């Protein structure tokens, strides 16, 4: 078959036109993702913890491990037991295996003792975000501190920077891992795994931007405190009745 230069231009032009129209149509119709019901700008997440309700059962730790496939021996949330004994200068703090199996019996000699659940404080001015050399750790617009796994180098700067000890290096992925405030759950209208499974309601997920959220009443009615306020991290996990000995 003989193809003249003229034929080539005409046929080529037609093919090109069809292809470009097809590509444009595909972009108009196919590329647009389904609209997301969840609006980041409408939320500002945090947590309130009522120390006087925590019974140290470890349900939150187990729930977190199950929900987020946290590797064994690592914890995104854990419970500490503080025992302040009479005449002893130092207080005793323990958290056997992050309290994933609860606690052994407490000493009866303690002047006072209590449980403190801990997790990432999702600070507004997070030291971990500030030190990350590659920008893998970031604040989401709805107030959750997260790690971009595909960016993280595993340099551990953030692990050292976190004043609350909330981060660890994932032993298999070799990237930093931490509490995401169950972002996959809260963006679908569920509460976090730890709050869902707390039998006494000691911990509660809150949304500061929701005017009907119980957090506003909670902050008005109670004496609340954040951990290490002198670090000026603007932590968003508020503790009710927090003892001064807690670090």
């Amino acid at each position, binding site marked *: 078959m003989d193809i003249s230069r003229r034929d080539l231009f005409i046929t080529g032009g037609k093919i090109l036109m069809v292809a470009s129209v097809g590509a444009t149509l595909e972009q108009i119709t196919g590329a647009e993702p389904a609209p997301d019901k969840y609006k*980041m700008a409408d939320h500002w997440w945090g947590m309130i913890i009522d120390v*006087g*309700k*925590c*019974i*140290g*059962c*470890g*349900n939150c730790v187990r*729930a977190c491990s*199950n*929900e*987020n496939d946290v590797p064994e021996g690592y914890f995104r949330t854990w419970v500490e*037991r503080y*025992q302040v004994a009479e005449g002893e200068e130092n207080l005793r703090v323990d958290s056997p295996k992050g309290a994933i199996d*609860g*606690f052994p*019996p*407490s*000493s*009866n000699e*303690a002047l006072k*003792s*209590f*449980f403190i659940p801990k997790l990432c404080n999702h600070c507004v001015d997070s030291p971990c975000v500030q030190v990350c050399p590659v*920008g893998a750790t*970031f*604040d*989401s*617009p709805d107030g959750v501190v*997260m*790690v*971009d*796994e*595909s*960016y993280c180098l595993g340099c551990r700067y953030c692990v050292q920077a976190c004043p609350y000890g909330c981060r660890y290096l994932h032993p298999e992925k070799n990237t930093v891992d931490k509490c*995401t405030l169950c*972002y*996959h*759950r809260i*963006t*679908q209208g*569920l*509460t976090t*795994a730890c709050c*869902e*499974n*707390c*039998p*006494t*309601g000691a911990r509660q997920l809150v949304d500061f931007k929701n005017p009907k959220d119980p957090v506003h009443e909670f902050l008005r009615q109670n004496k609340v405190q954040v951990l290490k306020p002198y670090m000026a991290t603007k932590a968003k996990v508020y503790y009710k009745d927090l003892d001064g000995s807690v670090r």
Partner: protein
Amino acid sequence: MRRLFHEWGHLIRPALVLLAAMGAFLVVRAAVIPKEFGKYGHFRPGALDLVRSHPIHYAGQDTCVMCHDDQAKLRASGKHAHVACEACHGPLAKHADDPSAVKPKLPDVANLCRRCHEKDASKPKGFPQVATVEHSGGVVCNSCHQPHNPHL
């Protein structure tokens, strides 16, 4: 032109090199920076989707009650009204998705009740606690108490 190069060549040649370098920088930058980087802040929006794609293991209270409303009613009248189903029964989102695929196991009562209700000095004073050995002498809790509404 030749005169221009003759007099300004020492300026034009580095300028061309600079322009080429800037062009190369722009091309490399466009290729290396992920799509939509910086849309919401100094991060890749895809990272949010990655975290959100994690599967849910705990179906949540509202989902359980949709089918098991009889148990929920019984529980609502007792002290365990605010304890979520999965707090004792474990993560059962798979069971909620397909009830026949995963059958929930009964909780290990001997340990389950004790973890919350064993007497301990660190627990809040108002929380109901018993020294199990004195209280029941080894008899399992649910031989007397109904776990969904434990009051006798």
